[in-house]
């Protein structure tokens, strides 16, 4: 016993090294599944606050560029809307129906504006922290978009902050998307490297489309409504197994200067989930 104690007092730093390294290892390997670890990430209140100050200073210097981009985009969209309205009016001789439909569509979603307080683009698995949390109605698995296009999906939430998994996350980001006007759908995957290029996988071989077509969210996942911009098709490859196409897409969102984003909360999601549950139940209950 005495020897043991003497041994421990002499070599206690070895034990401590072992203990601390084990603690690090546990955190390292459990992070992806361990929700409680929100304390050791940027969703932690202190770290969140520091990043918020930092972001406030940085965003001040970026405002001009962001404004310019938004104005351009706004102009483009407005022109598109007026054009479409004219076409629609010509076709149906009814000019009010479109406005009614638009309002109906938007009332299904609650939009929560948020600011990005921390953001990386140069790792394999990037994360974004935003300054809205549970207190503002942000929940796990809500979609996040910005003025130029899709951003990502909410992963962890604390009271006032949330961590978002952006498109630029190799391990965890798979956003369902479709080719605008053609309807064929696949999923969006990023393979690291250039933050403005991602790939759409699983587009069927019989699909007809061309370079320069736009890719948008498909609306199948119920995280994003359909029609949020993803990017423009730049190149078309065969997938490795030759069964589908892989599209190289130039992302419309500039992740390097992301400041203002919108969290999209779908009020009908509960309803959709309940329906899905019922279907599953009725299938398992059905007599064989």
């Amino acid at each position, binding site marked *: 016993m005495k020897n043991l104690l003497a041994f421990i007092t002499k070599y206690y*730093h070895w034990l401590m090294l072992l203990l*601390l390294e084990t603690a690090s290892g546990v955190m*390292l390997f459990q992070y992806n599944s361990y929700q409680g670890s929100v304390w050791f990430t940027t969703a932690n209140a202190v770290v969140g606050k520091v990043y918020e100050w930092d972001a406030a200073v940085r965003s001040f210097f970026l405002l001009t560029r962001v404004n310019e981009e938004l104005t351009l985009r706004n102009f483009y969209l407005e022109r598109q809307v007026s054009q479409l309205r004219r076409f629609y009016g010509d076709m149906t001789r009814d000019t009010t129906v479109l406005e009614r439909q638009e309002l109906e569509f938007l009332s299904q979603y609650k939009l929560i504006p948020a600011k990005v307080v921390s953001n990386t683009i140069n790792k394999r698995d990037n994360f974004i922290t935003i300054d809205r949390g549970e207190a503002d109605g942000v929940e796990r698995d809500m979609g996040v978009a910005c003025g130029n296009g899709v951003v990502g999906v909410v992963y962890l939430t604390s009271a006032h902050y949330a961590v978002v998994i952006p498109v630029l996350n190799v391990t965890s980001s798979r956003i369902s998307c479709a080719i605008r006007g053609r309807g064929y759908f696949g999923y969006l995957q990023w393979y690291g490297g250039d933050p403005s290029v991602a790939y759409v996988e699983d587009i069927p071989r019989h699909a007809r489309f061309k370079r320069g077509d736009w890719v948008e969210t498909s609306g199948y996942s119920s995280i994003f409504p359909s029609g949020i911009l993803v990017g423009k098709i730049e190149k078309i490859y065969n997938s490795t197994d030759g069964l589908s196409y892989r599209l190289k897409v130039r992302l419309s969102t500039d992740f390097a200067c992301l400041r203002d984003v919108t969290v999209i909360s779908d009020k009908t999601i509960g309803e959709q989930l309940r329906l899905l549950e019922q279907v599953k139940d009725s299938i398992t209950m059905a007599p064989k």
Partner: protein
Amino acid sequence: MAIDTLRRALVFVVLCLVQALVFNHIHLFGCATILLYVYFVVMLPRNYPRWAGLLWSFALGLSVDMFTNTPGMAAAALTLTGFLQPYLLQLFLPREAPENLKSAASSLGFTKFLTMAFILVFIHCLVFFTIESFGFFNWQQWSLNIVGTTLLTVLLIMTLESFRK
């Protein structure tokens, strides 16, 4: 003693913030990031209590991790670095060194301090990038990361060292 601890805590906070807000955003040539917080471990004096050194390095690693959403990565690497620091310092001690010798270029001599800092930073980078590349092993990127980061970090540490009294 209390003053010393306070001063160390201040350096701790400053290094952590500088790393999180400035150096984490700088990536030169696609491979070199400055990991300045290793400087904290390099600076631990001779005969500093082992347990305190280990706890400091673990806490600093974890704080840096919190800012990058990688809990455990820098903590594991920096704890190991903090553990090896006393042994390395022992190797580079001048003859008849005082008991609580500062670990600095002024007391160890420029070449000795440079060698020690280089070895420590290299070990840290080696462990750090090995953990980072887990499961996605690209040895060229991995070795480039280690070499670039080590060189840049040592360069910055030596620059700061020349201003230190």
